C-alpha cells in the first residue's frame, strides 16, 4: 500500500492550518484606533487606607533585563506594608513592552518598571496600564510627567549622549553632532542600530530633533560617507569597536553617565574619567512605572508605585542603573554631583510623534546607512 511520505502529510497539515487560520482572520480590522494622548476614560486606582492592609500579598514587578536595585530595598517595602515583591525581568525594553501588549488584560505581573518615552505610546495605545496618581508626583519635575492621564509614573531619567575617549582622539574633541560628519572624524564614530538598541534609537532621535524631520536624512548620508560604524547593541559598540574594549574607534554612542562608570570601575584607579560625554548631543530618556491593567491587586500595586518613587528606592538607583532619580528629593551620590552627567538642554521628541514615525524613520535610516 502506498503511503504519502511523512513530510507531505506534515506540510499538508501546516498549509491546512494556515488556510483555516487565514479564513478566520479577515474580520479582525478595527475602527480608527484611539491615539496615545486621547482621554482613555479610565478610572484611576485610589487608596489611602492603612498601608498594612495588604500584608501578606505577593506582588510581581516586570522590568527590563538591566533592572537592578540592592536586595535590601524591597525588604524596606515589606517592612512598611507587609507586601512581598518578586521582580521578574524580561529582555530589553522593546521586548518587555511587546510582551505586555501581548498579555494585555492578563498580565504576568502587577507593576511594570521601565517603559521609556520612546515606547510609551505603544504601551498606552494598547491600554496596558491603569491610571494612578501618586502623592509623590509633587516631587517630580513637570517635564518628566509626560502622560496627562497618569497611566504611568516617571521613575527615572537619563541622557543618551555621544562619548569620546579623550586620549584616543588625534585632534580637538567634537563639540556637536554636526562635527561627527566632518572629515576630521572619519572612521572614528560608532553608533548602534536604532532597531536593536536604545542608545542607537536615542542617537537617531537626537539627529531628528536637531536637524528636523526633513533634515536628518542628509546628515546621515554624510555620516555614512564619513566611515560610520554601526553595531547591533551597546556592548558590541562599546567593547567591540570603541577603544574601551580594544577597538580603534574613539567616539561612541553611550550615556551621559558612562564617564562616571569609567571612573568608578577604572583599573588601575584614575583621578578623572578617561571619557567625556558630549552634552550637546544628548537625547533625554525618561522611564516610567505603571500598574498593569488586569492585575488582581491594583491597590497594593499603587503602594508599590509610591515606593518606587520614594527616596528609599530612588537613592538606590543611580549606582545600580546609572540613571537619575525622578524624585527631586532623592539625594544624589557625590560622584553624580561632581561629574554632573546631564545635558542642560537635551534633545527630545514627543512620545506620540516617536510612535507614529518610528517604523518609517528606521526604514529610511536603514536605507541611508546601507546605501
Amino acid at each position, binding site marked *: 500500500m502506498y503511503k504519502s511520505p511523512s513530510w507531505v502529510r506534515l506540510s499538508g497539515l501546516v498549509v491546512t492550518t494556515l488556510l483555516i487560520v487565514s479564513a478566520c482572520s479577515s474580520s479582525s480590522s478595527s475602527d480608527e484606533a484611539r491615539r496615545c494622548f486621547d482621554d482613555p476614560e479610565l478610572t484611576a486606582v485610589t487608596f489611602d487606607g492603612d498601608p498594612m492592609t495588604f500584608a501578606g500579598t505577593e506582588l510581581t514587578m516586570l522590568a527590563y533585563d538591566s533592572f537592578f536595585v540592592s536586595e535590601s530595598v524591597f525588604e524596606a517595602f515589606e517592612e512598611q506594608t507587609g507586601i512581598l515583591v518578586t521582580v521578574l525581568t524580561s529582555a530589553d525594553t522593546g521586548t518587555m513592552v511587546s510582551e505586555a501588549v501581548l498579555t494585555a488584560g492578563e498580565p504576568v505581573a502587577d507593576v511594570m518598571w521601565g517603559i521609556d518615552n520612546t515606547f510609551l505610546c505603544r504601551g498606552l495605545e494598547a491600554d496596558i496600564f491603569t491610571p494612578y496618581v501618586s502623592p509623590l508626583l509633587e516631587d517630580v519635575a513637570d517635564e518628566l510627567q509626560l502622560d496627562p492621564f497618569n497611566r504611568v509614573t516617571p521613575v527615572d531619567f537619563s541622557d543618551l549622549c555621544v562619548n569620546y575617549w579623550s586620549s584616543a582622539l588625534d585632534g580637538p574633541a567634537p563639540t556637536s553632532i554636526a562635527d561627527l560628519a566632518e572629515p576630521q572624524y572619519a572612521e572614528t564614530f560608532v553608533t548602534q542600530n536604532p532597531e536593536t538598541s536604545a542608545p542607537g534609537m536615542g542617537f537617531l532621535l537626537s539627529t531628528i530633533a536637531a536637524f528636523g524631520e526633513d533634515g536628518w536624512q542628509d546628515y546621515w548620508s554624510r555620516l555614512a560617507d564619513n566611515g560610520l560604524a554601526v553595531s547591533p547593541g551597546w556592548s558590541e559598540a562599546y567593547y567591540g569597536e570603541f577603544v574601551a574594549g580594544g577597538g580603534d574607534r574613539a567616539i561612541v554612542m*553611550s550615556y551621559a553617565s558612562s564617564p562616571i562608570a569609567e571612573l568608578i570601575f577604572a583599573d588601575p584607579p584614575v583621578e578623572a574619567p578617561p571619557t567625556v560625554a558630549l552634552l550637546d548631543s544628548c537625547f533625554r530618556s525618561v522611564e516610567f512605572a505603571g500598574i498593569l491593567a488586569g492585575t488582581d491587586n491594583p491597590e497594593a500595586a499603587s503602594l508599590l508605585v509610591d515606593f518606587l518613587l520614594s527616596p528609599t528606592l530612588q537613592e538606590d538607583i543611580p549606582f545600580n542603573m546609572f540613571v537619575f532619580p525622578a524624585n527631586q528629593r532623592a539625594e544624589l551620590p557625590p560622584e553624580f554631583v561632581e561629574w554632573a552627567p546631564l545635558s542642560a538642554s537635551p534633545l527630545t521628541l514627543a512620545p506620540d510623534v516617536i510612535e507614529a514615525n518610528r517604523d518609517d524613520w528606521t526604514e529610511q535610516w536603514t536605507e541611508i546607512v546601507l546605501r
Partner: protein
Amino acid sequence: MPGLASRVARVLAVLTVGGFLFVFYLLPVSSILWRGRSWSVAVDVIGRGATWRIIWFTLWQSIASTAITLVVGLPIAHAIARYKFRGRAALRAFVTVPFVLPTVVVATAFLSLSDRFGLDSDPVRLPGTAWAILIAHVFFNVAVVVRSVGGYWSQLDDAPEAAARTLGAGRIRTFLYVTAPRLRPSLLSSAAIVFLFSFTSFGVVLILGGLRRVTIETEIWRYATQRTDFETAATLGVIQLVVVVVMLAANGRLQGRLAVQERTRPPSEVERVPTGVARLGLFGAVGLALVLVGVPLAVLVERSMSTGDGYGFGYYRALGNQDARIPLLPVSGWEAVGNSLSWAVIATLIATVVGTVAGVVSSSRRRLGRVTDIAFLLPLGTSAVLVGFGMLIALDDAPIDFRTRWWIVPVAQALIGVPFVMRSVSTALRSIDPSLREAAATMGASPRRVWREVDVPIASRAVVVGAAFAFAISVGEFGATTFLARPQRPTVPTAIFRLLGRPGDLAFGQAMALSVILMLITGTAVLVIEKMRVVVAGEL
C-alpha cells in the same frame, strides 16, 4: 510478548513525553501563530521580494555552515574515535566549550581577533560578511559533529575497513567507499542539528553579519519584540516552520532509507596508538581543533588576565567580592556559578528523561517514530521569541499560571536539550545489529532480558553523550533565562550580559573572567559526565 504492565508503562511514557511537547511547545507556538493570524499581512509579506531574499540567505548560510562544519569536524571526530592518545578526553571536552559561550563574548573575541590580524580593514574586511557568520557557526557547532559522529564512529567495528585495506584500497578510497557510508546515519543526524542551529542562529547573525545580513530568525525577533508586529512575525514563523519541517522530513527519510545495522564493538577494541601517517593525521586534526576553537578562547583568557597592573588574577578575585559600595553584580560570581549549575542539573534531568523516551519511540521505523523525531527537533528550528511569547499567552489559563513559575526556565532549556538525547539514542538503537538480538533470543533470553542486555548498554552510552550536550546547552543558555528571569539569582550568562552592559575596565575584565570560568565549568562537567560514560560502557 511483553506483559500488560510493561505495555501500560510504555503507553504512559509516550503520553507523558508527548504531553510535555504539547504543553511546552506545540500549544505555545500555535497560540502565538494563531494570535498573529492575518491573511492580508501574510499575502503582503509573502509578496515582498525582500522576504524571499531573506529566506534564501537563511537557507544558504545554514546549509553552507552545516557543510563546512561537517568537513572540519570529521577529521577531529576520526582522531577522537580511533586513536588512543593522551589528552583525548580533554580534547573532546575542549571542543564542546564554544557551545556554551554567550555569543556577545565570542563576537567581541572575533572582533578583536580580526582587529589584531588586520582582517577588519581593506582588502579583507571580515566582520559584516557572510564569511564571518559561517566561521562563527563552525566554531560553535563543530562540537556536534565531533561528539556525535565521533561517539558513533568509536564503536563501529573496523573489520570492513581492514578488509578494504587488505584488498588494496588506499586510505581515501577506504574512507569514501567504506567508512563514509557506514557513518551516514550519524552524519545525517548531526547535520540536521547543525543545520537547525545555524538556521535559527540569532546573536551570531545580528553581531557578525552587520546590517545587511538578516535571517528569518532575526526578522521574527525584530518584528515581534521591537515593532510589536505579531502578524508579520507569525507569518515569518509559519514560513520558518514549513522550511524546517521539509528539511527535517527529507533528513529523516534519508536516515530511514540508509539505516544499516552495524556490528558494534567496545571502543577499546578498535582504537589504537597512531603511528606513521596516522600520527601526522592526528597532529593535523588536533592542530585544526586548537586553531579553530583554541585561538578565540585564548583571546578570552588573555583579556581576562590583563588587569590594570599587568597580567594577573585581579578580575577573578573581584568576581568573588561584590560587596563594594558599588557592586557590579547582585551576588558574587561564584553564586552565579552555583545558580547556573543547579538550573542546568534540573534541565539536564528533564531533557535526559524526555529525550530517552523520545529516542526509543523515534528509533522505530514506523510512522510514529518519524513523526516523533521531527516533532522533538522542531523546537531547535523555531524562533525562541515565538516559543517564549507563545508560552506567555498559552500557559495563562492553566489551573495555575505557569508563566511565572521558576521551573519554566529549566523546562525551556530542556526543550533545546531533548533533541540531542533523542537523536543520540535513536541513532544508536537503530544501528544495533538484529542478529545480536536474535542470538540472545536463541540462547533463551526473554525479550526483556534481550532489551536489558543488548539495547540498554548501547543506548545508555548514547544517553550519556546526549546528556552532556543537554547540560552544556543549559549552562550556556541565555534566551530562556532572560525570559522572565529573577534578577537576584543571575546565572553565569546573565551575569556576563550584565557586566558587559557597564562601561569600565572592571566590568569588562570581570565579564571576561566569568566567561573563562564558564568555559572551565563546562569543560569539567563534560569530562565528569564522560567518566560516567566509561563506567556504563564497561558493562558491555
